[in-house]
Protein backbone atom coordinates (compact mmCIF):
# COMPACT_ATOMS: atom_id res chain seq x y z
CA UNK A 1 0.00 0.00 0.00
CA UNK A 2 1.47 3.33 -0.96
CA UNK A 3 1.30 5.98 1.70
CA UNK A 4 -1.66 8.23 1.07
CA UNK A 5 -1.11 11.84 0.19
CA UNK A 6 -1.36 13.82 3.38
CA UNK A 7 -1.05 17.38 2.17
CA UNK A 8 -3.78 18.16 -0.31
CA UNK A 9 -1.97 21.26 -1.50
CA UNK A 10 1.44 19.66 -1.63
CA UNK A 11 2.22 18.21 -4.99
CA UNK A 12 5.66 16.87 -5.62
CA UNK A 13 7.97 19.83 -5.90
CA UNK A 14 11.00 17.84 -6.99
CA UNK A 15 11.06 18.76 -10.67
CA UNK A 16 10.19 22.45 -10.31
CA UNK A 17 12.97 22.82 -7.74
CA UNK A 18 15.47 20.99 -9.95
CA UNK A 19 14.55 23.12 -12.98
CA UNK A 20 14.78 26.36 -10.95
CA UNK A 21 18.11 25.47 -9.39
CA UNK A 22 19.68 24.18 -12.62
CA UNK A 23 18.51 27.25 -14.47
CA UNK A 24 19.94 29.62 -11.89
CA UNK A 25 23.18 27.64 -11.63
CA UNK A 26 23.70 28.01 -15.40
CA UNK A 27 23.02 31.75 -15.64
CA UNK A 28 26.65 32.87 -15.12
CA UNK A 29 27.90 30.27 -17.62
CA UNK A 30 25.47 31.44 -20.30
CA UNK A 31 26.10 35.09 -19.42
CA UNK A 32 29.86 34.69 -19.84
CA UNK A 33 29.52 32.71 -23.07
CA UNK A 34 27.16 35.25 -24.60
CA UNK A 35 29.12 38.18 -23.17
CA UNK A 36 26.11 39.51 -21.23
CA UNK A 37 28.00 40.14 -17.99
CA UNK A 38 25.29 42.34 -16.48
CA UNK A 39 22.98 39.31 -16.28
CA UNK A 40 25.09 37.97 -13.43
CA UNK A 41 24.58 41.04 -11.30
CA UNK A 42 20.91 41.34 -12.26
CA UNK A 43 20.20 37.71 -11.40
CA UNK A 44 22.08 38.02 -8.12
CA UNK A 45 19.76 40.85 -7.12
CA UNK A 46 16.73 38.81 -8.17
CA UNK A 47 17.87 35.79 -6.16
CA UNK A 48 18.35 37.94 -3.06
CA UNK A 49 14.78 39.19 -3.23
CA UNK A 50 13.62 35.66 -4.05
CA UNK A 51 15.26 34.55 -0.80
CA UNK A 52 13.26 37.20 1.09
CA UNK A 53 10.04 36.15 -0.68
CA UNK A 54 10.80 32.52 0.18
CA UNK A 55 11.15 33.42 3.85
CA UNK A 56 7.83 35.26 3.73
CA UNK A 57 6.11 32.23 2.19
CA UNK A 58 6.98 30.16 5.26
CA UNK A 59 4.84 32.31 7.55
CA UNK A 60 2.34 33.54 4.95
CA UNK A 61 1.83 30.40 2.90
CA UNK A 62 2.28 27.66 5.45
CA UNK A 63 1.58 29.60 8.63
CA UNK A 64 -1.26 31.72 7.22
CA UNK A 65 0.20 34.87 8.77
CA UNK A 66 0.11 37.87 6.45
CA UNK A 67 3.09 39.93 7.58
CA UNK A 68 3.10 43.36 6.00
CA UNK A 69 6.43 44.37 7.47
CA UNK A 70 8.70 41.70 6.15
CA UNK A 71 11.07 44.14 4.44
CA UNK A 72 12.10 45.34 7.90
CA UNK A 73 14.12 42.16 8.33
CA UNK A 74 15.92 42.79 5.04
CA UNK A 75 16.64 46.32 6.23
CA UNK A 76 17.93 45.11 9.60
CA UNK A 77 20.24 42.56 7.99
CA UNK A 78 21.45 45.12 5.46
CA UNK A 79 22.06 47.88 8.03
CA UNK A 80 23.82 45.52 10.45
CA UNK A 81 26.15 44.46 7.65
CA UNK A 82 26.57 48.01 6.31
CA UNK A 83 27.42 49.49 9.69
CA UNK A 84 29.85 46.68 10.47
CA UNK A 85 31.58 47.19 7.10
CA UNK A 86 31.86 50.94 7.77
CA UNK A 87 33.29 50.24 11.22
CA UNK A 88 35.91 47.94 9.73
CA UNK A 89 34.35 44.79 11.13
CA UNK A 90 32.67 43.70 7.92
CA UNK A 91 34.19 40.24 7.69
CA UNK A 92 31.61 37.61 6.77
CA UNK A 93 32.37 35.74 9.98
CA UNK A 94 31.16 38.74 11.99
CA UNK A 95 28.67 40.46 9.70
CA UNK A 96 26.69 37.36 8.72
CA UNK A 97 26.04 36.00 12.22
CA UNK A 98 25.35 39.50 13.50
CA UNK A 99 22.81 40.12 10.72
CA UNK A 100 21.07 36.87 11.58
CA UNK A 101 21.06 37.62 15.31
CA UNK A 102 19.74 41.16 14.89
CA UNK A 103 16.95 40.20 12.48
CA UNK A 104 16.12 37.12 14.56
CA UNK A 105 15.93 39.17 17.75
CA UNK A 106 13.70 41.75 16.09
CA UNK A 107 11.45 38.93 14.88
CA UNK A 108 11.37 37.43 18.36
CA UNK A 109 10.44 40.65 20.13
CA UNK A 110 7.93 41.87 17.54
CA UNK A 111 6.58 38.34 17.13
CA UNK A 112 5.77 38.09 20.83
CA UNK A 113 3.48 41.09 20.41
CA UNK A 114 2.19 40.58 16.88
CA UNK A 115 1.43 36.86 17.15
CA UNK A 116 -1.05 37.51 19.93
CA UNK A 117 -3.25 39.12 17.31
CA UNK A 118 -4.91 37.75 14.21
CA UNK A 119 -6.25 38.84 10.85
CA UNK A 120 -6.27 42.53 10.04
CA UNK A 121 -4.76 43.46 13.40
CA UNK A 122 -1.77 41.24 12.69
CA UNK A 123 -1.31 42.90 9.30
CA UNK A 124 -1.45 46.36 10.84
CA UNK A 125 0.91 45.53 13.70
CA UNK A 126 3.53 44.00 11.42
CA UNK A 127 3.18 47.04 9.17
CA UNK A 128 3.71 49.30 12.19
CA UNK A 129 6.82 47.40 13.29
CA UNK A 130 8.11 47.52 9.73
CA UNK A 131 7.64 51.28 9.57
CA UNK A 132 9.38 51.57 12.92
CA UNK A 133 12.45 49.91 11.41
CA UNK A 134 12.14 52.17 8.36
CA UNK A 135 12.06 55.37 10.42
CA UNK A 136 14.83 54.11 12.69
CA UNK A 137 17.00 53.65 9.60
CA UNK A 138 16.12 57.17 8.44
CA UNK A 139 17.19 58.52 11.81
CA UNK A 140 20.65 56.92 11.62
CA UNK A 141 22.33 60.23 10.68
CA UNK A 142 25.79 58.85 11.38
CA UNK A 143 25.11 56.26 8.68
CA UNK A 144 23.57 58.35 5.95
CA UNK A 145 20.10 58.93 7.39
CA UNK A 146 17.54 59.52 4.68
CA UNK A 147 20.04 59.27 1.84
CA UNK A 148 21.34 55.88 2.76
CA UNK A 149 24.95 54.88 3.05
CA UNK A 150 27.45 53.95 0.36
CA UNK A 151 29.72 51.24 1.67
CA UNK A 152 33.52 51.09 1.35
CA UNK A 153 33.32 47.63 -0.15
CA UNK A 154 32.00 44.14 0.43
CA UNK A 155 32.45 41.81 3.36
CA UNK A 156 35.75 39.99 3.40
CA UNK A 157 35.99 36.27 4.06
CA UNK A 158 38.76 35.52 6.57
CA UNK A 159 40.21 38.87 5.48
CA UNK A 160 40.19 37.89 1.80
CA UNK A 161 38.26 39.93 -0.76
CA UNK A 162 36.59 36.86 -2.24
CA UNK A 163 33.16 38.42 -2.56
CA UNK A 164 34.30 41.25 -4.84
CA UNK A 165 34.29 38.68 -7.60
CA UNK A 166 30.87 38.81 -9.24
CA UNK A 167 30.81 35.11 -10.03
CA UNK A 168 31.84 34.08 -6.51
CA UNK A 169 29.19 36.35 -5.04
CA UNK A 170 26.63 34.97 -7.46
CA UNK A 171 27.24 31.42 -6.35
CA UNK A 172 27.27 32.40 -2.67
CA UNK A 173 23.82 33.92 -3.16
CA UNK A 174 22.73 30.90 -5.15
CA UNK A 175 23.91 28.56 -2.38
CA UNK A 176 21.99 30.58 0.23
CA UNK A 177 18.82 30.49 -1.85
CA UNK A 178 19.04 26.80 -2.76
CA UNK A 179 20.01 25.87 0.81
CA UNK A 180 17.12 27.79 2.36
CA UNK A 181 14.70 26.40 -0.21
CA UNK A 182 15.77 22.87 0.65
CA UNK A 183 15.62 23.61 4.38
CA UNK A 184 12.12 25.08 4.21
CA UNK A 185 10.84 22.33 1.89
CA UNK A 186 11.99 19.74 4.42
CA UNK A 187 10.69 21.76 7.34
CA UNK A 188 7.26 22.19 5.78
CA UNK A 189 6.92 18.44 5.27
CA UNK A 190 8.25 17.53 8.70
CA UNK A 191 6.28 17.43 11.95
CA UNK A 192 6.89 21.11 12.58
CA UNK A 193 5.45 22.07 9.21
CA UNK A 194 2.35 20.00 9.71
CA UNK A 195 1.65 21.69 13.02
CA UNK A 196 2.20 25.12 11.46
CA UNK A 197 -0.17 24.21 8.62
CA UNK A 198 -2.70 22.76 11.04
CA UNK A 199 -2.64 26.01 13.01
CA UNK A 200 -3.26 27.95 9.78
CA UNK A 201 -6.38 25.89 9.12
CA UNK A 202 -7.65 25.52 12.67
CA UNK A 203 -5.66 27.03 15.53
CA UNK A 204 -8.18 26.19 18.26
CA UNK A 205 -8.19 22.56 17.17
CA UNK A 206 -4.40 22.45 17.39
CA UNK A 207 -4.52 23.81 20.92
CA UNK A 208 -7.09 21.25 21.99
CA UNK A 209 -4.69 18.60 20.67
CA UNK A 210 -2.07 19.96 23.06
CA UNK A 211 0.04 22.09 20.71
CA UNK A 212 1.32 25.46 21.83
CA UNK A 213 0.33 27.30 18.67
CA UNK A 214 1.86 30.60 19.77
CA UNK A 215 5.25 29.01 20.33
CA UNK A 216 5.20 27.16 17.00
CA UNK A 217 4.27 30.35 15.15
CA UNK A 218 6.93 32.33 16.99
CA UNK A 219 9.57 29.78 15.98
CA UNK A 220 8.49 30.04 12.35
CA UNK A 221 8.39 33.83 12.55
CA UNK A 222 11.93 34.04 13.94
CA UNK A 223 13.27 31.62 11.34
CA UNK A 224 11.52 33.58 8.61
CA UNK A 225 12.94 36.85 9.94
CA UNK A 226 16.44 35.42 10.04
CA UNK A 227 16.29 34.22 6.44
CA UNK A 228 15.09 37.67 5.39
CA UNK A 229 18.00 39.06 7.44
CA UNK A 230 20.31 36.82 5.44
CA UNK A 231 18.84 38.37 2.31
CA UNK A 232 19.62 41.77 3.83
CA UNK A 233 23.24 40.76 4.43
CA UNK A 234 23.52 39.70 0.79
CA UNK A 235 21.75 42.82 -0.48
CA UNK A 236 24.07 45.22 1.37
CA UNK A 237 27.07 43.39 -0.02
CA UNK A 238 25.64 43.17 -3.50
CA UNK A 239 24.71 46.82 -3.88
CA UNK A 240 27.50 48.09 -1.58
CA UNK A 241 24.85 50.47 -0.37
CA UNK A 242 22.18 50.49 2.33
CA UNK A 243 19.09 52.66 2.39
CA UNK A 244 15.94 53.03 4.49
CA UNK A 245 14.06 52.11 1.32
CA UNK A 246 15.12 48.47 1.86
CA UNK A 247 12.78 48.38 4.86
CA UNK A 248 9.93 50.41 3.35
CA UNK A 249 6.40 49.03 3.33
CA UNK A 250 6.32 49.18 -0.47
CA UNK A 251 9.08 46.57 -0.47
CA UNK A 252 7.02 44.43 1.96
CA UNK A 253 4.13 44.72 -0.50
CA UNK A 254 6.39 43.63 -3.37
CA UNK A 255 7.32 40.52 -1.39
CA UNK A 256 3.66 39.65 -0.83
CA UNK A 257 3.00 40.03 -4.57
CA UNK A 258 5.94 37.77 -5.38
CA UNK A 259 4.56 35.06 -3.09
CA UNK A 260 1.07 35.38 -4.57
CA UNK A 261 2.34 35.26 -8.14
CA UNK A 262 4.31 32.13 -7.32
CA UNK A 263 1.45 30.37 -5.57
CA UNK A 264 1.02 30.81 -1.83
CA UNK A 265 2.50 28.05 0.29
CA UNK A 266 4.48 26.19 -2.34
CA UNK A 267 7.89 27.67 -1.37
CA UNK A 268 9.54 27.07 -4.75
CA UNK A 269 6.66 29.08 -6.18
CA UNK A 270 7.79 32.07 -4.11
CA UNK A 271 11.21 31.86 -5.75
CA UNK A 272 9.65 31.54 -9.20
CA UNK A 273 7.23 34.34 -8.38
CA UNK A 274 10.02 36.67 -7.30
CA UNK A 275 12.02 35.97 -10.45
CA UNK A 276 8.95 36.52 -12.65
CA UNK A 277 8.01 39.72 -10.84
CA UNK A 278 11.49 41.21 -11.11
CA UNK A 279 12.01 40.10 -14.73
CA UNK A 280 8.70 41.70 -15.67
CA UNK A 281 9.66 44.87 -13.85
CA UNK A 282 13.05 44.88 -15.57
CA UNK A 283 11.60 44.18 -19.02
CA UNK A 284 8.76 46.68 -18.79
CA UNK A 285 10.85 49.48 -17.31
CA UNK A 286 13.13 49.14 -20.35
CA UNK A 287 10.15 49.69 -22.67
CA UNK A 288 8.65 52.86 -21.29
CA UNK A 289 9.00 55.14 -18.30
CA UNK A 290 5.30 54.65 -17.59
CA UNK A 291 5.86 50.93 -17.15
CA UNK A 292 3.90 50.78 -13.90
CA UNK A 293 0.70 51.47 -15.84
CA UNK A 294 1.25 48.17 -17.63
CA UNK A 295 2.82 46.30 -14.72
CA UNK A 296 -0.07 46.77 -12.28
CA UNK A 297 -2.89 45.48 -14.49
CA UNK A 298 -0.66 42.68 -15.75
CA UNK A 299 -0.06 41.43 -12.20
CA UNK A 300 -3.78 41.59 -11.43
CA UNK A 301 -4.64 39.69 -14.62
CA UNK A 302 -1.99 37.11 -13.88
CA UNK A 303 -3.32 36.46 -10.39
CA UNK A 304 -6.94 36.36 -11.60
CA UNK A 305 -6.28 34.05 -14.52
CA UNK A 306 -3.86 31.55 -13.02
CA UNK A 307 -5.76 30.52 -9.85
CA UNK A 308 -2.87 29.66 -7.61
CA UNK A 309 -0.05 31.44 -9.38
CA UNK A 310 2.85 29.70 -11.08
CA UNK A 311 2.50 26.67 -8.85
CA UNK A 312 -1.12 26.31 -9.88
CA UNK A 313 -0.29 26.56 -13.57
CA UNK A 314 2.48 23.98 -13.29
CA UNK A 315 0.18 21.65 -11.34
CA UNK A 316 -2.50 21.89 -14.03
CA UNK A 317 0.02 21.35 -16.81
CA UNK A 318 1.18 18.20 -15.06
CA UNK A 319 -2.41 17.03 -14.70
CA UNK A 320 -2.95 17.54 -18.42
CA UNK A 321 0.25 15.68 -19.28
CA UNK A 322 -0.70 12.84 -16.97
CA UNK A 323 -4.02 12.56 -18.83
CA UNK A 324 -6.13 14.47 -16.36
CA UNK A 325 -5.09 12.18 -13.56
CA UNK A 326 -4.69 13.94 -10.22
CA UNK A 327 -1.49 13.89 -8.16
Amino acid sequence: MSSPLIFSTKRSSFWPVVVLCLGLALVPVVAVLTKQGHWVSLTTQMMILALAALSLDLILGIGGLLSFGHAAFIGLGAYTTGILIQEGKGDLLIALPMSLVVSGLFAFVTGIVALRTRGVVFIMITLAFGQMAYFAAQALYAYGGDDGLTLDGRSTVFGLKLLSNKIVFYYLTFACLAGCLLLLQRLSRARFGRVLLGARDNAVRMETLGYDVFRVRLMAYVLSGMIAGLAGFLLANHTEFVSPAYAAWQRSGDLIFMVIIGGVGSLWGAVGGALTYLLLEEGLSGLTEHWKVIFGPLIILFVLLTHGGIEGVVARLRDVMAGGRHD
Partner: protein
Amino acid sequence: MTDTAAIRPVLQIDGLKKSFGALNVTNGVSLSVNPGEIHALIGPNGAGKTTLIHQIAGLLRPDAGHILFNGHDITTTSMPQRARLGLARTFQITSIVPSLTALGNVALAVQAGADKPLGFWTPVDADDSLNSPAQALLETVGLGARAGVIAGQLSHGEKRALEIAMALALKPRVILLDEPMAGMGHEESARLTDLLKSLKGTYAMLLVEHDMEAVFSLADCVSVLVDGHVLATGSADMVRNDPQVRAAYLGDEAF
Protein backbone atom coordinates in the same frame (compact mmCIF):
# COMPACT_ATOMS: atom_id res chain seq x y z
CA MET B 1 -24.08 3.77 39.90
CA THR B 2 -22.97 1.40 42.67
CA ASP B 3 -20.67 2.66 45.41
CA THR B 4 -19.89 5.95 43.70
CA ALA B 5 -18.58 7.22 46.99
CA ALA B 6 -15.65 4.82 46.82
CA ILE B 7 -14.61 5.92 43.32
CA ARG B 8 -12.72 9.16 43.00
CA PRO B 9 -14.11 11.22 40.12
CA VAL B 10 -11.63 11.88 37.34
CA LEU B 11 -13.28 15.19 36.55
CA GLN B 12 -14.95 17.35 39.13
CA ILE B 13 -16.51 20.75 38.63
CA ASP B 14 -17.23 22.84 41.63
CA GLY B 15 -19.39 25.97 41.74
CA LEU B 16 -18.45 27.13 38.26
CA LYS B 17 -19.68 30.60 37.27
CA LYS B 18 -19.38 32.51 34.04
CA SER B 19 -21.27 35.56 32.91
CA PHE B 20 -21.17 37.64 29.78
CA GLY B 21 -22.21 41.10 30.88
CA ALA B 22 -25.44 40.73 32.82
CA LEU B 23 -26.09 37.28 31.41
CA ASN B 24 -25.17 34.49 33.86
CA VAL B 25 -24.50 31.68 31.42
CA THR B 26 -22.99 29.36 33.99
CA ASN B 27 -24.51 29.94 37.38
CA GLY B 28 -22.82 27.75 39.97
CA VAL B 29 -22.52 24.42 38.19
CA SER B 30 -21.14 21.44 40.10
CA LEU B 31 -20.90 17.96 38.68
CA SER B 32 -18.45 15.08 38.52
CA VAL B 33 -17.48 12.36 36.07
CA ASN B 34 -16.23 9.00 37.33
CA PRO B 35 -13.60 6.90 35.54
CA GLY B 36 -15.02 4.89 32.65
CA GLU B 37 -18.43 6.46 33.03
CA ILE B 38 -20.56 8.44 30.61
CA HIS B 39 -22.07 11.46 32.25
CA ALA B 40 -24.62 13.08 29.99
CA LEU B 41 -25.42 16.76 30.15
CA ILE B 42 -28.78 17.68 28.72
CA GLY B 43 -30.80 20.84 28.69
CA PRO B 44 -32.71 23.13 26.39
CA ASN B 45 -30.96 25.40 23.88
CA GLY B 46 -29.29 28.30 25.61
CA ALA B 47 -28.92 26.44 28.90
CA GLY B 48 -25.15 27.01 28.79
CA LYS B 49 -23.95 23.53 27.87
CA THR B 50 -21.35 24.54 25.30
CA THR B 51 -20.13 27.41 27.48
CA LEU B 52 -19.59 24.89 30.24
CA ILE B 53 -17.66 22.56 27.92
CA HIS B 54 -15.53 25.50 26.76
CA GLN B 55 -14.62 26.27 30.37
CA ILE B 56 -13.73 22.68 31.14
CA ALA B 57 -11.59 22.45 27.99
CA GLY B 58 -9.91 25.77 28.73
CA LEU B 59 -11.23 27.85 25.85
CA LEU B 60 -13.03 30.12 28.34
CA ARG B 61 -11.88 31.13 31.80
CA PRO B 62 -14.60 30.83 34.49
CA ASP B 63 -15.32 33.82 36.72
CA ALA B 64 -15.53 31.66 39.82
CA GLY B 65 -15.37 28.04 40.88
CA HIS B 66 -12.93 25.21 40.34
CA ILE B 67 -12.24 22.46 37.85
CA LEU B 68 -10.45 19.44 39.26
CA PHE B 69 -8.91 16.93 36.90
CA ASN B 70 -7.59 13.80 38.54
CA GLY B 71 -7.54 15.69 41.80
CA HIS B 72 -5.49 18.59 40.40
CA ASP B 73 -6.92 22.06 40.06
CA ILE B 74 -6.79 22.95 36.35
CA THR B 75 -9.03 26.02 36.52
CA THR B 76 -6.28 28.30 35.18
CA THR B 77 -4.31 25.74 33.18
CA SER B 78 -3.91 26.55 29.46
CA MET B 79 -5.83 24.64 26.82
CA PRO B 80 -2.78 22.81 25.33
CA GLN B 81 -1.66 21.87 28.83
CA ARG B 82 -5.07 20.39 29.64
CA ALA B 83 -4.93 18.36 26.44
CA ARG B 84 -1.52 17.04 27.40
CA LEU B 85 -2.86 16.07 30.84
CA GLY B 86 -5.43 13.87 29.12
CA LEU B 87 -8.49 16.01 28.58
CA ALA B 88 -9.69 15.64 25.00
CA ARG B 89 -12.72 17.18 23.37
CA THR B 90 -14.82 17.29 20.24
CA PHE B 91 -16.64 20.36 19.03
CA GLN B 92 -20.31 21.06 18.45
CA ILE B 93 -19.34 22.53 15.10
CA THR B 94 -16.99 20.08 13.44
CA SER B 95 -13.40 21.10 14.04
CA ILE B 96 -10.79 19.36 11.92
CA VAL B 97 -7.90 20.38 9.68
CA PRO B 98 -9.70 20.38 6.33
CA SER B 99 -6.64 20.44 4.06
CA LEU B 100 -5.11 17.29 5.53
CA THR B 101 -6.36 13.79 4.82
CA ALA B 102 -8.36 11.90 7.42
CA LEU B 103 -5.21 9.98 8.23
CA GLY B 104 -3.23 13.22 8.45
CA ASN B 105 -5.68 14.65 10.96
CA VAL B 106 -5.41 11.67 13.27
CA ALA B 107 -1.64 11.43 12.75
CA LEU B 108 -1.43 15.06 13.81
CA ALA B 109 -3.22 14.17 17.02
CA VAL B 110 -0.94 11.16 17.57
CA GLN B 111 2.05 13.43 16.95
CA ALA B 112 0.96 15.75 19.78
CA GLY B 113 1.71 12.97 22.25
CA ALA B 114 4.86 11.73 20.49
CA ASP B 115 8.38 12.07 21.89
CA LYS B 116 9.33 14.77 19.40
CA PRO B 117 6.15 16.58 18.41
CA LEU B 118 8.09 19.22 16.46
CA GLY B 119 10.71 17.53 14.26
CA PHE B 120 12.26 19.83 11.67
CA TRP B 121 13.72 17.49 9.11
CA THR B 122 12.14 14.04 8.70
CA PRO B 123 9.17 14.00 6.32
CA VAL B 124 6.01 13.20 8.16
CA ASP B 125 3.90 11.72 5.34
CA ALA B 126 5.54 8.32 5.51
CA ASP B 127 6.14 8.27 9.27
CA ASP B 128 4.79 4.90 10.36
CA SER B 129 5.19 5.68 14.04
CA LEU B 130 2.38 8.21 13.50
CA ASN B 131 0.47 6.64 10.62
CA SER B 132 0.05 3.14 12.06
CA PRO B 133 -1.65 4.20 15.29
CA ALA B 134 -3.63 6.75 13.30
CA GLN B 135 -4.83 4.08 10.86
CA ALA B 136 -5.78 1.83 13.77
CA LEU B 137 -7.85 4.63 15.31
CA LEU B 138 -9.57 5.26 11.99
CA GLU B 139 -10.52 1.57 11.91
CA THR B 140 -11.89 1.92 15.44
CA VAL B 141 -14.28 4.68 14.43
CA GLY B 142 -15.14 2.98 11.14
CA LEU B 143 -13.17 5.23 8.81
CA GLY B 144 -10.45 2.76 7.92
CA ALA B 145 -11.26 2.84 4.23
CA ARG B 146 -11.42 6.63 4.13
CA ALA B 147 -7.88 7.30 5.39
CA GLY B 148 -6.65 8.91 2.18
CA VAL B 149 -9.60 11.26 1.69
CA ILE B 150 -9.08 14.97 2.27
CA ALA B 151 -10.85 15.62 5.55
CA GLY B 152 -12.73 18.61 4.17
CA GLN B 153 -14.41 16.30 1.66
CA LEU B 154 -15.68 13.74 4.17
CA SER B 155 -19.41 13.56 4.84
CA HIS B 156 -20.77 15.24 7.96
CA GLY B 157 -21.09 11.97 9.86
CA GLU B 158 -17.59 10.92 8.86
CA LYS B 159 -16.18 14.23 10.10
CA ARG B 160 -17.84 13.67 13.47
CA ALA B 161 -16.30 10.20 13.67
CA LEU B 162 -12.94 11.68 12.64
CA GLU B 163 -13.13 14.11 15.53
CA ILE B 164 -13.62 11.22 17.91
CA ALA B 165 -10.62 9.41 16.44
CA MET B 166 -8.56 12.58 16.98
CA ALA B 167 -9.72 12.78 20.58
CA LEU B 168 -8.86 9.11 21.16
CA ALA B 169 -5.38 9.66 19.71
CA LEU B 170 -4.53 11.81 22.72
CA LYS B 171 -4.92 8.74 24.95
CA PRO B 172 -7.22 10.83 27.10
CA ARG B 173 -8.62 10.10 30.52
CA VAL B 174 -11.68 12.20 29.87
CA ILE B 175 -13.37 13.08 26.58
CA LEU B 176 -15.72 16.04 26.35
CA LEU B 177 -18.23 15.36 23.59
CA ASP B 178 -20.18 18.43 22.53
CA GLU B 179 -23.25 17.20 20.65
CA PRO B 180 -21.48 14.50 18.64
CA MET B 181 -24.77 13.43 17.01
CA ALA B 182 -25.76 16.93 15.89
CA GLY B 183 -26.92 16.96 12.30
CA MET B 184 -26.69 13.20 11.91
CA GLY B 185 -29.24 10.93 10.33
CA HIS B 186 -30.86 8.20 12.41
CA GLU B 187 -28.62 5.47 11.08
CA GLU B 188 -25.44 7.47 11.55
CA SER B 189 -26.28 8.39 15.11
CA ALA B 190 -27.15 4.77 15.92
CA ARG B 191 -23.69 3.80 14.63
CA LEU B 192 -22.06 6.51 16.72
CA THR B 193 -24.02 5.38 19.76
CA ASP B 194 -22.62 1.89 19.28
CA LEU B 195 -19.12 3.32 18.98
CA LEU B 196 -19.45 5.33 22.17
CA LYS B 197 -20.88 2.30 23.93
CA SER B 198 -17.79 0.31 22.96
CA LEU B 199 -15.53 3.07 24.32
CA LYS B 200 -17.42 3.29 27.58
CA GLY B 201 -15.45 1.78 30.42
CA THR B 202 -12.14 2.69 28.84
CA TYR B 203 -12.69 6.43 28.82
CA ALA B 204 -14.67 8.74 31.00
CA MET B 205 -16.94 10.97 28.94
CA LEU B 206 -18.94 14.07 29.49
CA LEU B 207 -21.57 13.96 26.78
CA VAL B 208 -23.65 16.93 25.74
CA GLU B 209 -26.43 15.66 23.51
CA HIS B 210 -29.95 16.45 22.35
CA ASP B 211 -30.61 12.97 20.98
CA MET B 212 -32.49 11.52 23.94
CA GLU B 213 -32.47 8.00 22.58
CA ALA B 214 -28.67 8.12 22.55
CA VAL B 215 -28.46 9.77 25.95
CA PHE B 216 -30.70 7.26 27.69
CA SER B 217 -28.99 4.26 26.14
CA LEU B 218 -25.47 5.51 26.91
CA ALA B 219 -25.42 7.53 30.09
CA ASP B 220 -24.62 6.18 33.53
CA CYS B 221 -25.59 9.48 34.96
CA VAL B 222 -27.55 12.43 33.59
CA SER B 223 -27.44 16.05 34.64
CA VAL B 224 -30.04 18.51 33.48
CA LEU B 225 -28.78 22.02 32.91
CA VAL B 226 -31.37 24.81 32.83
CA ASP B 227 -30.57 28.52 32.84
CA GLY B 228 -26.97 27.94 33.81
CA HIS B 229 -27.52 25.67 36.78
CA VAL B 230 -27.98 21.95 37.35
CA LEU B 231 -31.65 21.22 37.90
CA ALA B 232 -31.20 17.53 38.63
CA THR B 233 -28.55 14.83 38.56
CA GLY B 234 -29.08 11.11 38.70
CA SER B 235 -29.59 7.93 36.72
CA ALA B 236 -31.43 8.15 33.43
CA ASP B 237 -34.61 6.81 34.99
CA MET B 238 -34.49 9.17 37.94
CA VAL B 239 -34.05 12.17 35.71
CA ARG B 240 -36.68 10.96 33.27
CA ASN B 241 -39.27 10.81 36.01
CA ASP B 242 -38.34 14.01 37.81
CA PRO B 243 -41.40 16.28 37.54
CA GLN B 244 -39.26 19.42 37.68
CA VAL B 245 -37.23 18.19 34.72
CA ARG B 246 -40.34 17.23 32.81
CA ALA B 247 -41.73 20.67 33.35
CA ALA B 248 -38.58 22.53 32.47
CA TYR B 249 -37.31 20.62 29.55
CA LEU B 250 -38.41 17.23 28.45
CA GLY B 251 -41.46 17.10 26.28
CA ASP B 252 -43.75 14.14 26.83
CA GLU B 253 -42.79 12.78 23.43
CA ALA B 254 -39.35 11.92 24.81
CA PHE B 255 -40.78 9.08 26.88
